[in-house]
Structure formats: C-alpha cells, structure tokens
C-alpha cells in the first residue's frame, strides 16, 4: 500500500561522546518511496542510518510501520522487522564465498522460520547476474563494484521493507553507478522503500521522490526531489554550476 507512513522520525539526537552528530532530525517516508539524504562529509548521514538500524544509540521519537522503534532493542530485532542497511563500509564476510554471503543475508528470515532463501537467491542472481558468475569466489577477492552488488544483494536476501543504502555509488565507475541506480528504481516497483544516502547528489535526486539535505547534523533543507534539484543553493553546493538534467545519469560524474 503506497501512501501510508513507513517511517516517521521526530527530534532524533545522537552523539559520539561529547561530539554531537545528529541534532533534532525530523524525517518522514511513505511506503514505496525512494528518499535520499545528501550533504557534505561529516554531516551525519552515516550516523543517521546507523541510529535507525540500532548500531549507534540515539534519542528521539522514531516510528516505523506505526510502532515505536525503541521496542526493538538491537540490530538483529530491527533487521527481523524488515529494516536492512548496506553500510558505507560494506562489512562483507571476506573469506566466505559470494553465495554464502548472500545466504547469510537470509539469516534473520530463516530464524523466523521462513525457508524461502533459495528462491530469494534466484531473484537476487537475476538482479545481479555478475554475482551468479562469481558465486564460489571469496567475497574478499571481488572488485569494488562487485562488492557493492554483493552488499546490496545480501541486504535484499532479507526481503526488507525498508532498505537503507549508504553511498551505493562510492568509488564506482559511472556506468556501474547507472546500473545501480536503475536497480534501486526497479526495487520500488517490488514494494521496497529505499532510504538513500549519497554524495552523488545529482543521481540520487534524479531517482528519488523526496530529499533531505543534512548539514552539521541538522536538516538544512528538504522537499520533493525535483524541487530540491532546482533549488539554487543545492545547485550551488551539491550539483555544481552545470545545468541540471542535461545528461543521462551514466555520463554524470560524482560531485566531490
């Protein structure tokens, strides 16, 4: 059901020791939406995703699928409720094979009694044929792009309701970035909601419904993605002076 609220964040606060990383963040997401979060280095984007999955402790009111997220105490419980994170650092199981990494992505579902990991695996392989070719290779020996595919594939093995991606285009060639964003857009049609953190603001906003600009741990700007992409200060800071929407995603370069 698109239209109803999936995630409502109100006054989220997180810190590392004495350093505040998130200050009074408010954010909303509807089911089936792609929402992107952009912002400079150190703005708190990774911290936001880590707080939502439970890797970093936070304070504030977070409602997920109508329930307070604080009911789910640790990462594993939140994963079992359908939240998956592809972290910036990927966190693959390097010595294990690609296929084992993917199968482990279904661990939470398996623990809840679902035994559909092999059909999910077939779906993920269909999405990333390259992973199927590399199924017996150790994850640690994959190329950067393949690792990113594996990290996304592993997260999809959990059949998430909310998929959070931290810089999926990090360090990838423009062509692969285009493929990854195509897959993200395709995911929406399968009902997955995506919360996307990106440095590549142009590609992110182009694929999203709504966007937030995070600066110094605070929401500096928000709005429908198309409006944000037109906003002069966003163009200035994150999209560069190049005229918007003149080139397909594949040819765009990351904005540093």
């Amino acid at each position: 059901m698109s239209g109803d609220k999936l995630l409502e964040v109100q006054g989220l606060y997180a810190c590392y020791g004495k350093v505040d990383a998130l200050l009074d963040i408010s954010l909303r997401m509807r089911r089936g939406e792609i929402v992107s979060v952009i912002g400079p280095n150190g703005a708190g984007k990774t911290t936001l995703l880590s707080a939502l999955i439970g890797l970093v402790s936070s304070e504030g009111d977070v409602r997920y699928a109508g329930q307070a997220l604080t009911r789910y105490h640790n990462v594993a419980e939140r994963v079992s409720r359908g939240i998956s994170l592809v972290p910036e650092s990927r966190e693959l199981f390097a010595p294990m094979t690609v296929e084992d990494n993917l199968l482990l992505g279904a661990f939470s579902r398996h623990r809840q009694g679902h035994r559909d990991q092999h059909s999910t695996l077939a779906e993920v392989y269909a999405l990333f044929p390259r992973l199927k070719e590399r199924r017996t290779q150790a994850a640690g020996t994959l190329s950067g792009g393949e690792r990113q595919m594996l990290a996304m594939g592993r997260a999809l093995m959990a059949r998430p309701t909310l998929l959070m991606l931290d810089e999926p285009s990090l360090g990838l060639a423009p062509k692969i970035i285009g493929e990854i964003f195509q897959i993200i857009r395709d995911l929406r049609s399968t009902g997955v909601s995506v919360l996307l953190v990106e440095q590549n603001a142009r590609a992110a906003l182009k694929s999203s419904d709504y966007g937030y600009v995070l600066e110094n741990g605070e929401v500096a700007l928000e709005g429908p993605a198309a409006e944000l992409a037109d906003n002069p200060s966003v163009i200035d800071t994150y999209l560069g002076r190049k005229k918007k929407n003149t080139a397909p995603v594949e040819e765009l370069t990351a904005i540093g």
Partner: protein
Amino acid sequence: MDWYVFTFLTQDGLTTGAIYALIALALVLVFAVTRVILVGQGDFVTLSALTLATLQAGKTPATVWLLLGGASLVCVKMLAAAAREGRLAQAPRILLMQMTLPCVLALVCWLVEPATLPGALKVLLSIVIIAPLGPVLYRLVYQPVAQASVLQLLIISVAIHIAVIGISLWIFGAEGFRTLPFTSGNLDLGEVSISLQSVLVIGIALALIVALYLFFGHTLYGKALRATAFNQRGAQLVGVPTDLAGSHAFLLAAIIGAVSGILIGPITTLYYDSGFLITLKGFVAAIIGGMASYPLAAAGAFLVGLLESFASFWVSAYKEVIVFTLVLPVLLWLSLTTHHVEEEQH
C-alpha cells in the same frame, strides 16, 4: 624400543591427541567468535569427568547445584535488564528459557538414586549438566565485557579458571578420580593389538570433528557463527545477535569439553585442577593452527599427543617441557611468515 612398545605408544598418543584435537577446536572456535582465550576449557573436561565419576560412585554430583545457581544468576541479570528497558512482559519467557533445563536436572538428581541409573544415562546426564555451564559462563562473565581487549579477556579467563578450580576442589575434594572404561576388549590384528577403548575414543572424537565440520560448513546457523568470527558488524546486519553467537560458541565449547571429559576419564586419573594442563596442550595445538585454522589445529593436536606419549617413554620427567617447547619454533615460524595484525581499538 620394540614393536609392541611402539604400537602401544602410538595408540596412546593418537588417543590423547584426539582429545587434544577436540580441545583445540573449541579454543579456536571460542576465540574466533568472541576473542576470548578460554583458559577454563579444560575445566569443562574435568568437571564432566568428575561428575560422571561421582554418579558412578552412586552419589549426586554437586555440579548440578552449580548449574542451578549459575542459571539463577543469569536469570536475575536478564530480568534486571528487562526491567530497566521496560519489557517485563518477557519475564515469563526468560524464566522458562533459562530455568527449565537446570530445574529438570536438579529434580532428576534430587529424586533419582544415581546408582539405579544405567551407565549410558549417567554419561548423558554428566554431559547435559556441564554443557549449559558454557552459556551461563558467557552471559555472566564475558557478555558484559564483550568490547574489552584480548588481553583483558585473557586476564578474566585466568581469574575464572582459578575460581572454577576452587569450586571444583570444594565440590570434589583433592583426590583423583577415574571413570569406568567403556570396554576392556582388544582388537588383535596380527602383530598389533589395539585396545577397543582407544578405538572408541578416537572414533567418537573424529565423529564429533566431522559433525562440527558439517555444522560450520553446511548449515546456515554454523555459517552465521563463522561469519560472526569474520565480521561481527556484518553478522549483526544480517540479523545475528552478537550475544547469541557468543553464548552458542560457549555452548559448543562446553559440549566439546564435556564429551572430552567422558572420553578421557577412563584413560587418565583426573584431579580437580587437571583442566589447566589439558587446556595448555590444546592451546599448543591451536597455536600450531595460528588460532585460526581448524584442520591445522587438529593436526597439531595429534602431534602433541604423539610427542607426549613417546616423550613419556624416553624421558618421562621432561614430557611436559618437550610438548611446550614445541610452541617456540611454531611461534617463530608464525611471526616470520604472517604479517602482524594490530588489534582493533575499542
């Protein structure tokens, strides 16, 4: 040395080697998942052997009260945590999960005259009493300090080991125990005579090793435990609760220890403090495998067993020295061939 002595020593070495292999595997497993060097691994061995010896003597083993006490403490801790986090609704579930087995075991020991139990049940009872001590130990001691450094965890392990020895002395006294042999038969193959007891010990140890191999290599749960060892954060993100992985690693270690105790009990006289030397020999084997490789650790264990057996024949006073000297060239080799990995800062 004649042929007879040679086959005898080889048999003896392979038998103890099989047990050291089990200990080494447990040490590597626990270290990989939790970074704990479990000095008390050998204590599971002695506790289970002495529990069985007590049952065979027709008495109720006090280890069952140890389990009951430990499980109660875990319960109190979990209930307190639940109360703090406002989920007291889970209290009945916690009580049920943590206390059912210890209470049933305590009831069995209290109501049933041990002498009336058949031998196999005594063995089973000993294993079932000792195995849950692993998770109890993890939840009480190691889980709260899961983020500590390897050195801090080692110091805690030493402290725990000393405490367990004290409890063991209190429970079992200072005398030595030997459990009844499973069988006294011999297998005659021409010139060589093999004791069935040895065959049984090696067979069971190998079967357990194969079972562990299948578990870690071919079940999702086993893979999840391995994955936790490789990348704890990654494991969390696929839904493996870190504390669950830790307590299951300890459960496996305690099961391995308890079975080893049953196997070694009829071969060696065990005292309340014999666990330490057993751990150390498993540790030498684990070091040979670089604390990471299960097959190398198992191979190292058989080497340790054989070395010990032959050394005890030629220069029995120095047998321990010879076994532990084995660590030196191995460490030298490891330090020359592996690049040094800095421990992560926490």
